[in-house]
């Protein structure tokens, strides 16, 4: 299972955990938020970024962002969530992670699978 560690960044700079793959979806399998040395509580979100296909209803689709998961990590805390807690967190396009506040001391590790 591949994984990626990133620091907490704002939505505008959202960190790419897994790039979009045309014939697969990205499933979140584990996540650890290390906020032991963070500057405060941090709201962490997993974001799905993709451009839908041309359809009967939409002739010119644009890039779309959908938040798939959200968690508030308390300052001085570290949590790990596994496959059961993340069941159903599926990204159709690229999987990105961001925080409500940029914090170089708050780390997020995400394990994922392409299915």
């Amino acid at each position, binding site marked *: 299972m591949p994984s990626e560690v990133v620091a907490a960044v704002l939505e505008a700079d959202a960190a790419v955990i897994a790039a979009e793959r045309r*014939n697969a979806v990205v499933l979140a399998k584990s996540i650890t938020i290390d906020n032991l040395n963070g500057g405060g509580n941090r709201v962490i979100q997993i974001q799905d970024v993709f451009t839908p296909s041309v*359809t009967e209803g*939409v002739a010119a689709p644009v890039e779309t962002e*959908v938040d798939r998961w959200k968690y508030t990590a308390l300052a001085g805390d570290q949590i790990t969530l596994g496959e059961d807690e993340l069941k159903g967190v599926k990204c159709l396009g690229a999987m990105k992670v961001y925080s409500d506040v940029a914090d170089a001391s708050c780390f997020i590790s995400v394990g994922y699978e392409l299915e």
Partner: protein
Amino acid sequence: MLELQSKPQFSVVVPPRTLQEGYLVHFSEDWPSTHNAVRAKTFRIDVTNQVPYDLSYIIPTGDYRDVDFSNGSGTFQENIYPENVNSLFEVLVGFKPGNFLSQWYIPAGKSISQLEYAQMYPDLDDDEKKYLGARQPKDSPYDDPRIKMYLVKDLSPLIMRLFTLEGVDYEKIVVGLTINKCKMREIEAPSQDDLLKAKVIRYYDYLRW
């Protein structure tokens, strides 16, 4: 204890799921004159080549996309059809799981699932009739495809309409194709035995009567 297992009295042989080299195919007489190159003729498969190809679409809930397997530069055309009269493409279609259905049309606009009573045809705007004839992903799984198409040059466009059901914002629909390219050689005077062995490929009109 020592046990000697007895020899099985019979074994089950699973036939190949695709046309193989040396197989015979026969195109029935109901093919129109526009397909004289194959109509009422028998061919031997000389060469095969299996080409996998994945198609993928992200479709919002309640919306649909037509996948046109024919050749051309249209937005919805996927260019899967053969270009040579001596080619037959046997295409297996499988779906990865998801919250969607597929409807099938050939030619465009004519459903293969229409019943005989008036208005009993698939209608995506109708909450009940959208399910009429709809194929689900589990009907033809990605790893065990059960939908097959037989494509020859200049066949009318075969359309697969994919639509996302309610309950999700978007769905990613992954369609796995295995295109079994078959190079055919005509048997000028097939024997009765050849005709009995040949796989009969009928024109699509037989699906509607």
